[in-house]
């Protein structure tokens, strides 16, 4: 392994139905030479594999997966390739395309000029495949429009739904007929059920197609697994159905063999058991697809076509054939095909699907547009900057897909249980059999006893039949499908919810860690604050604040200092005329001096004013007050007379105060980390209500500060920008990279917040907590079900109430159990984090009215 370069690929896997299937596929893949690790996500139906391409091919992986009874539904593209002259062309294409990373299979049909490629979109795009063939000198177009973009995974799921539906349509009516025939002699049923239906040979004739038709899959799959030394749910079903059917056949054809005789033909058990298991599989296949609806919605956003301007001509091309630098045209109502920068025109664009921002965003020349978003009002042109797999949407889809393919630490428990469960259940079934055979039957058996919810009397049974029946029921009732589905189905829905709100969790572990956070550290500059200084207050001795600001702006007009720029910007925003100064000089460490209309203007600190003997009087007290608040106070003097003070500070973002307050409400401690001096930091912290201030921290020491908090036993999140704060984000239990915009792939951090809005930090925690709550509910239900059901199946009630669970009731309960878990995950659809549900808390509104979190000047 160490010699080659390890690659990562995400493969779709169809046909898995439980945690044991996951284990089976993982083992099959990890058994391959060259595979470093394999992790399978049941709900996403995907396998993430780290492998050495030199030692192992995608075809090997497909073969291994098929070997244990599952399928790989590859992405498929069908191309019409013109110019192929013979078999050497065929070989060229097969060799060139087949050598591409991510291509599993290439088929060239010279008769129809068609090239069909099976590939995985996690490694290569359709456009890259087309380009390779085009580079060989052939003309390439899509065989049938849209076909290439067919969702293979959905197709596979639909196939599975269809397959199980057909099975159900065979099993259900036959099973019901078998049940009607079996119970014909009870109650008034004989009055309308024909007598021939109760004939044991007719029952055999009806049950056999159910067991050998829809039930065949369980025998084949369990045999395939056993051959490779792995067990799965199919084995439980196969032994259960097989045993019931086997006894029924013996009792039909050799009634005196001692298996319970004619009264113990369990055809209805075998038939209904199969029916309920198939029903469970069908319902699971139908519902499980819905938990991944969010990612599907994102995929659907990917535009198919684009209109580009090439050589002055407007061309309609496939969206993934747009090249960087192409000028694209977008009309109102159309989707923006790729990422780019507006070059001409003006419009409003609905970006809600990417950023969660509900209001359309105005776009004009120079603004960025995101592929997949929808142009609302005007027409515009833009230059493509990112295309194909590089677009924000493609990156987001990949990120969410990867997140969905990972496992949360909490899942280790269910995986471990599921892994050992099947064997454990068989051991238990053996124990139950031996117990009832050697002791229980003699002690408690009552010939008049019944199955729960059934009029069936057990009188026909003898020791072997009774013990076997309970043993089989244990096998059927114990299926840990629900345990296997509990975590991934909720995590999948949760990652989708996040993506819909512009919050991208990089993995299930990030989701779980976010839910457990205790402390959130915000980087100050650029995260809590806007990151650029602005004028927050102007104090004037004679009440003419505008004049003080104007004088300061004239002095700073030619300055390139950020404080000076802030003053000039503030003056311009107030509509003040700021003429050029005749003379200008910067006095390092003191301030600036300028001459305007013959008068000398001074702008600077106390030392400058003292040097020039300008009396400050009451302005000194004002300056001290401003400095207490962490602002930089600059004195303004003109013609040797002090005129006022201009205060400049980095201002808080609008959402900072509310975000901190909401985090407090969630029970979290909020800290701030900054390189600023303690007084400035404390002033900012006071304004937003931050609990802990980590001031005077050099950028390179931020990670160490995070570690210190972790050493105190706290689970810490760091919120900052993904580039400057990368080490601290990586050190934290959860790094939240904020305001990444569209370049999500470059971000460090475990959670990416697309928008520059601190409320998304709260939203991320709310979504993570909601998701983990669902996971815990699911696990509690799944484990609770098995804990309660196994003793019931083993006959714990029998000594007291003389009733046992029938195998078919066991199958029904098992199907309900996994269905309830999936439905619980589905109920997460439509959840909106409370922070995004609108309405501002009264306390926040009051604080804002008091000026907390707002530039002071704006409120005066």
């Amino acid at each position: 392994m160490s010699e080659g370069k390890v690659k990562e690929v995400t493969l779709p896997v169809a046909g898995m139905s439980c945690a044991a299937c996951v284990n089976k596929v993982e083992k099959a893949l990890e058994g391959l030479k060259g595979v470093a690790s394999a992790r399978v996500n049941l709900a996403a139906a995907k396998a993430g594999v780290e492998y050495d391409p030199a030692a192992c091919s995608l075809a090997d992986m497909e073969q291994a997966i098929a070997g244990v009874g599952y399928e790989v539904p590859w992405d498929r593209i069908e191309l019409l390739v013109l110019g192929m002259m013979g078999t050497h062309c065929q070989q060229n294409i097969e060799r060139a395309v087949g050598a591409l990373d991510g291509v599993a299979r290439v088929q060239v049909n010279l008769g129809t000029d068609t090239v069909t490629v099976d590939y995985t979109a996690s490694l290569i795009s359709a456009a890259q495949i087309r380009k390779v063939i085009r580079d060989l000198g052939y003309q390439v177009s899509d065989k049938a429009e849209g076909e290439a973009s067919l969702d293979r995974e959905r197709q596979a799921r639909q196939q599975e739904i269809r397959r199980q539906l057909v099975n159900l349509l065979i099993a259900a009516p036959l099973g019901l007929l078998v049940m009607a025939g079996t119970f014909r002699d009870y109650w008034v049923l004989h009055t309308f059920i024909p007598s021939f239906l109760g004939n044991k040979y007719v029952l055999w004739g009806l049950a056999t197609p159910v067991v050998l038709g829809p039930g065949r899959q369980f025998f084949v799959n369990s045999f395939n697994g056993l051959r490779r030394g792995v067990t799965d749910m199919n084995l439980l079903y196969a032994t259960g159905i097989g045993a019931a059917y086997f006894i029924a056949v013996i009792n039909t054809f050799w009634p005196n063999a001692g298996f319970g005789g004619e009264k113990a033909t369990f055809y209805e058990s075998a038939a209904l058991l199969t029916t309920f298991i198939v029903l469970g599989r069908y319902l699971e296949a139908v519902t499980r697809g819905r938990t991944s609806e969010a990612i599907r919605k994102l995929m659907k956003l990917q535009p198919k076509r684009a209109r580009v301007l090439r050589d002055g001509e407007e061309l309609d091309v496939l969206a993934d054939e747009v090249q960087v630098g192409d000028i694209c045209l977008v009309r109102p109502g159309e989707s923006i095909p790729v990422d780019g920068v507006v070059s001409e025109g003006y419009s409003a664009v609905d970006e809600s699907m990417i950023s969660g921002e509900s209001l359309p965003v105005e776009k004009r020349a120079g603004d960025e547009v995101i592929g997949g978003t929808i142009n609302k009002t005007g027409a515009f042109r833009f230059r493509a900057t990112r295309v194909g797999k590089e677009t924000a949407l493609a990156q987001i889809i990949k990120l969410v897909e990867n997140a969905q393919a990972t496992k949360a630490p909490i899942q280790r428990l269910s995986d471990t249980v599921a892994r050992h469960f099947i064997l454990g259940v068989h051991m238990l079934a053996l124990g139950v059999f031996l117990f009832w055979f050697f002791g229980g039957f003699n002690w408690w058996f009552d010939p008049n006893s019944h199955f729960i919810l059934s009029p069936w009397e057990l009188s026909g049974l003898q020791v072997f039949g009774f013990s076997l029946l309970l043993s089989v029921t244990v096998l059927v009732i114990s299926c840990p499908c629900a345990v296997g589905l509990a975590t991934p189905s909720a995590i999948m829905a949760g990652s989708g919810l996040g993506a819909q709100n512009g919050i991208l969790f990089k993995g299930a572990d990030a989701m779980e860690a976010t839910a457990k956070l205790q402390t959130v550290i915000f980087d100050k500059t650029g995260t809590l604050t806007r990151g650029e200084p602005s004028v927050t207050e102007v104090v004037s001795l004679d009440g003419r604040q505008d004049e003080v600001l104007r004088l300061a702006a004239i002095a700073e007009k030619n300055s390139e200092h950020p404080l000076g720029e802030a003053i000039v910007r503030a003056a311009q925003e107030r509509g003040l005329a700021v003429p050029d100064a005749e003379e200008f000089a910067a006095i390092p460490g003191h301030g600036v001096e300028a001459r305007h209309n013959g008068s000398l203007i001074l702008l600077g600190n106390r030392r400058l004013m003292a040097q020039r003997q300008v009396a400050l009087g009451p302005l000194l007290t004002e300056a001290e007050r401003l400095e207490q608040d962490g602002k930089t106070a600059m004195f303004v003097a003109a013609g040797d007379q002090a005129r006022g003070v201009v205060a400049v500070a980095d201002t808080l973002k609008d959402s900072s105060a509310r975000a901190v307050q909401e985090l407090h409400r969630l029970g979290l401690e909020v800290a701030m980390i900054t390189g600023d001096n303690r007084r400035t930091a404390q002033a900012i912290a006071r304004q937003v209500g931050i609990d802990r201030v980590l001031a005077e921290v050099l950028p390179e020491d931020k990670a160490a500060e995070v570690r210190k908090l972790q050493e105190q036993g706290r689970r810490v999140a760091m919120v900052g920008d993904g580039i400057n704060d990368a080490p601290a984000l990586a050190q934290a239990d959860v790094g939240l990279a904020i305001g990444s915009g569209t370049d999500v792939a470059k971000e460090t951090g475990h959670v990416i917040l697309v928008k520059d809005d601190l409320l998304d930090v709260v939203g991320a925690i709310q979504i993570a907590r909601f998701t983990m709550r669902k996971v815990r509910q699911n696990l509690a239900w799944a484990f609770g079900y098995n804990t309660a059901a196994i003793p019931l199946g083993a006959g714990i009630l029998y000594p007291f109430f003389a009733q046992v669970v029938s195998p078919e009731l066991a199958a029904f309960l098992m199907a309900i159990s996994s269905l309830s878990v999936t439905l619980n995950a589905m109920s997460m659809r439509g959840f909106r984090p409370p922070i995004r549900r609108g309405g501002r808390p009264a306390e926040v509104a009051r604080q804002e009215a008091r000026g907390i979190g707002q530039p002071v000047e704006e409120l005066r």
Partner: protein
Amino acid sequence: MDQQRATYVSALVYTAVSLLGSVAFLAATTLRGDYNWVARLGGAGWVFLLLMIILMPTVTPWVKKRLGGRQG
């Protein structure tokens, strides 16, 4: 070749142990209680089947690991 040998050895082990288990069951039913032959043979068959199912996935990787480890 090693793979084949491991498969062969493990098949030998789990079949033998399962057979021993079912023979033990037969012996127990003979020594204890009044069971008819159908119950005895049927029970022994069920015990054999369950033991095979339990042992196949446990013995196979164990043998493969041991044989692989020794050669490697």
